[in-house]
């Protein structure tokens, strides 16, 4: 229980760190956000008024304090370009990103586990080499390019799937598969090495010595024990997946947070950049926390606190 509280506290500290980093990156931006927002034709009075309302006149420490205060009340500032709270814009786009990442995770986990298990059953086998090499390929092809090639093939040439936008399940297929490819490789490689590691454990020898069939050893001991690290790292990699989504969304004009962030950067709409980044970071941190707690539930050594 105490361990759980401690984990939550650490997660909060991490979030605070993220918020701080985001704050200072945005403040370090060249140019004056107020000028950028109003355009070169605005007069000095207008700029000064906007600066005042954006709190840009206060000292940096004061701005930082106010920013943190706002964060606690979930006030992430408002977008002057969109003329509404940044959090609203983010909330509007969030479901699309969640949909995309969940679909990609599902594809990647299923495909990755199958491939990884095939490779990990016998290290050094033909399957193992095949999967190992294939996964390097999957990880190496840039998603934005693969996405474009998918569009070229499935949308423009074959005409079987839509090339951009969202709405129908068909719209989800290309972005989700594109996003899932490198992630599939990660899951497969992890599963493979985890299984190979587990197979060297003495208790596998014990299980064989009991007279269990190879299949029983695999299901009863190998799979279960190798999945624990896989699940953990897969969840940790969800952050990378959300990062990848930012890129993929832009390829397929998917109306999620990724397109929002890139648009906002182009328009120097820092409130939105800040809000979207923080929301993604929060999701990642929350996921990590959940995994950590789930890990406790799976691995008795940690649950009972006998091993750090």
């Amino acid at each position: 229980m105490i361990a759980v509280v401690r984990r939550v506290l650490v997660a909060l500290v991490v979030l605070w760190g993220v918020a701080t980093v985001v704050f200072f990156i945005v403040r370090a931006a060249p140019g004056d956000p107020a000028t950028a927002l109003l355009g070169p034709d605005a007069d000095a009075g207008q700029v000064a008024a906007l600066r005042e309302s954006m709190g840009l006149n206060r000292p940096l420490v004061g701005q930082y304090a106010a920013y943190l205060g706002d964060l606690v009340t979930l006030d992430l500032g408002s977008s002057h370009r969109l003329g509404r709270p940044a959090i609203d814009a983010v909330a509007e786009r969030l479901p699309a990103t969640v949909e995309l990442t969940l679909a990609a995770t599902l594809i990647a986990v299923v495909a990755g586990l199958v491939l990884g298990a095939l490779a990990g059953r016998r290290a050094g086998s033909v399957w193992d080499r095949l999967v190992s090499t294939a996964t390097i390929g999957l990880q190496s092809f840039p998603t934005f390019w693969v996405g474009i090639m998918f569009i070229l093939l499935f949308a423009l040439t074959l005409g079987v799937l839509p090339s951009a936008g969202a709405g129908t399940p068909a719209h989800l297929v290309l972005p989700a598969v594109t996003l899932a490819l490198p992630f599939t490789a990660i899951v497969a490689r992890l599963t493979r090495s985890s299984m190979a590691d587990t197979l060297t454990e003495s208790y596998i020898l014990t299980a064989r010595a009991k007279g269990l069939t190879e299949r029983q050893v695999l299901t009863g001991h190998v799979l279960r024990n190798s999945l624990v690290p896989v699940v953990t790292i897969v969840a940790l990699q969800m952050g990378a997946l959300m990062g990848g989504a930012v890129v993929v969304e832009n390829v397929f004009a998917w109306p999620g947070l990724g397109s929002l962030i890139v648009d906002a950067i182009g328009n120097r709409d820092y409130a939105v950049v800040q809000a979207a980044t923080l929301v993604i970071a929060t999701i990642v941190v929350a996921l990590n926390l959940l995994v950590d707690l789930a890990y406790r539930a799976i691995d008795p050594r940690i649950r009972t606190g006998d091993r750090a």
Partner: protein
Amino acid sequence: MAPNSTAPRVAGASADPGESSPDAGLRVRELTVDLRVDGRLRRVVDGITFAVAPRGTLGIIGESGSGKSVTALALLDLLPESAHIGGEIRWRGEDLVRASAARRRRIRGREIAMVFQDPLAALNPTRPVGRQIGEILRRGGMRRAQVGERVVELMTMAGIPDPTSRRRAYPHQLSGGLRQRVVIAMALAGEPSLLLADEPTTALDVTVQARILGLLGSIRAEAGLAMILVSHDLRVVSHVTDEVAVMYAGRLAEYGPTRDVLRHPRHPYTQALIQSVPAVHSRSALTRPLPGTPVGPANRPAGCAFHPRCPLAIDRCAVEQPAWRPVPPGRWVACHRAEEVGA
């Protein structure tokens, strides 16, 4: 390889004449194991022969690289698939070397069970010990409630106090001694007739070791098990077993009733081993130790593998591998100068 013209008459058979039919117990003849090490096949176990009568006890003693653990794993067919096993392993008359993989698997755990050295590593850390003990019962189709009862019985037999609550414990929550008792209970679950214990007490403290050895003794007596104890510790073997096989560099140096072998070793290596063991209960002077280090299968010299370290070595020893020959009464030895050892 030692050319053996006559089939060795095995000492184990004479220990218990009532059950000495050739189809009883375990008889190993000319066992060889080739293991793939760094891509090359190496003969790790080179033509060893021994027998264990029903209810008999055999100690296999050897230092690192002697091949004793590989021998144990070979008996249970637990070596990697790339390993090649030759010779004969006759279990109740059936040659396991030539039996099907499925047949050998059915013998594992149910007829021949194994107790490993490090109980913490031998247990799956993520499952309660009771489940691990009952695993083969459950897989064998026993009903859940019955499995539970049987697990408690087995744990009681292995001397685990408070088995009903302990069976839900995870391996890391138990002490080293209790863990080894769990491993023993697990080995007993299949009601085997032969227990193969590979360094069962090496990872344990002295006081715990004494208790575990006591437990193994009483279980053996109650359940009528035969036992093979693989160890590097001559002291343990001397207390637990009726017969002993001494291995050096993958070959047998000497084989016979434990008491006789320890009193009158016929092989210079056995003699040196005995002299190297420090005594606790009497002041023993430091002896002149054997020079050199034990050789493994990779750097086994020609002739007798022991000759570079042997105080009795003659020119012949470097050239000719000594034959495995009987030395009355009921002893076997591989040494050209066996008659002069200890003389």
